[in-house]
């Protein structure tokens, strides 16, 4: 089985994240780049499916030069090879542009299964997997907490507002995973060393047959008008329980008219 995992480099959520004042895009230089957490679960699931069914795992990441660190991490976990979609023309692409560029790269790479995280910590659109399914005409098996493949059939448990749905489809398919699905492995020392030698192919827009007028900030379908730091929350009152903590909390709720 030919599995492609989409992995995104995101600014570390433990650091302060910013938008750039010049073009209002995410400032990727201001913070350390890390693997989007949920994408580690996606890589793990790909590796487990490969271990059970054979095949190959390809990491696909679209992002600036430093996204190679993130690609190496996924390779160190055990993925076989990687494709880095990297071109200045892609800077500032919104969800539509990103999904288009990634879908073009996927067509070039070829796949039986594409696995994504269900959401990135920076953009948080939670849309990319659905958009890829739409663009590729492939079944959308998203928000999965369990994935089973048998021959060319695939079954997932999709989390819902009320519990979960059991969903079935045929390969090729697009899957996104939630963190309930597995426990991602840590790269071993051997894995880290091996990752240095694994092939990483860099694709630009021309290589992936990406039309220039569909990507980049200027061609996006949406724009940031303005932005500002949220006003800090007024400092609250914190008390130590001296046997009347519950009663004090009740007084606070009453003062706010909740009770």
């Amino acid at each position: 089985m030919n599995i492609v995992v989409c992995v995104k480099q995101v600014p570390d959520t433990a650091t302060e994240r910013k938008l750039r004042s010049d073009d209002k895009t995410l400032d990727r230089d201001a913070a350390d780049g890390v693997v989007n957490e949920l994408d580690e679960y996606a890589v793990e699931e790909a590796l487990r499916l490969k271990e059970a069914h054979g095949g190959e795992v390809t990491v696909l990441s679209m992002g600036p030069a430093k996204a190679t660190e993130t690609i190496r991490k996924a390779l160190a976990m055990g993925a076989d090879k990687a494709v880095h979609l990297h071109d200045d023309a892609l800077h500032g692409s919104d969800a539509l542009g990103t999904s288009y560029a990634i879908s073009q790269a996927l067509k070039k790479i070829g796949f039986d299964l594409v696995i994504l995280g269900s959401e990135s910590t920076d953009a948080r659109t939670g849309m990319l997997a659905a958009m890829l399914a739409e663009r590729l005409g492939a079944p959308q098996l998203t928000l999965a907490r369990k994935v089973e493949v048998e021959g060319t059939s695939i079954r997932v448990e999709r989390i819902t507002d009320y519990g979960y749905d059991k969903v079935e489809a045929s390969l090729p398919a697009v899957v996104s995973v939630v963190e309930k699905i597995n426990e991602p492995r840590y790269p071993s020392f051997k894995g880290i060393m091996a990752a240095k030698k694994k092939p990483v192919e860099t694709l630009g827009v021309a290589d992936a047959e990406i039309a220039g007028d569909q990507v980049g900030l200027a061609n996006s379908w949406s724009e940031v008008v303005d932005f500002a730091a949220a006003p800090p929350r007024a400092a609250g009152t914190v008390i130590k329980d001296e046997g009347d903590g519950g009663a004090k909390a009740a007084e606070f709720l009453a003062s706010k008219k909740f009770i």
Partner: protein
Amino acid sequence: MSEILVLVEHVDGDVKKVTLELLTLARSLGTPAAVWAGPGYSDAGKARLAEYGAEKIYVANADEIGDYVAAPKAEVLAHLVTERSPAAVFVAATGEGKEIAGRLAIKTDSGVISDAVGVGEGFVAEQSIFGGGVNVHSRVTKGTPIITVRPNSTAPVAAPAAGAEEKVEVALSDAARAARIVERVVQEKGARPELTEAAIVVSGGRGVGSGENFAIIEKLADALGAAVGASRAATDAGWYPHQFQVGQTGKTVSPQLYIAAGISGAIQHRAGMQTSKTIVVINKDAEAPLFEIADFGVVGDLFQVVPQLTEEIEKRK
């Protein structure tokens, strides 16, 4: 004024509160038209939509629409966008809502804005990003603005309208029938308000210690008429079903009041509750990061503090 399509969220024929919020929001910017996609359409549902301002109700209630993941609803909306050229489309920012909006954007070559907390003149959307640290105004620049709106962003206000029904027949494509839902598994937990819709949410975390102990959290919730939430630590441990998880990979809640007991406040948890209007934190560790965003905090043992709080509330009723 031109039409704004609002995709109706419904369960068992009942219209969810978020749809009433979206109709209220749509009314401030145009003429709301509800879009019912999927089975279960009823007179009660129709009446509710009309009560909250739907001038029109487009009804695509073929059973088939509910049998597949996301794609059929996107096709129904795409059909209406082409036929009716609405001024905008509003969809609830739920897991599936966002997916439907994403697919619709591609089908109609339109921009999409995710998880707005408000929408103003010219369909300029307000978003709260980076865990609530930055407020952004954004807008769609191509096609029909498609905006997903976070539940609890607007207070629903009734304003009776015609609710004129119009049947919509859409022949689903094969692609829309690719991911078939073979079974729906409902994991219920009592008759409390729905988590994303509740005005008050009481959540428990690892500090609660066991599934049985969640009764303490539930009692406080019931005294307040609140929904119960949980941290990932609590859902992973099996103490509470996962659909009650609040956070990055759980529900995003934005209630008037959020009470957290035995939750440390990891960034992934905060991502799902940071825009709550008032936050109360109960934790025995004074260093717990959630205290940083608390309006009121009690450093203490939740097994003492929570029952006492519940009792005080009952007394004051």
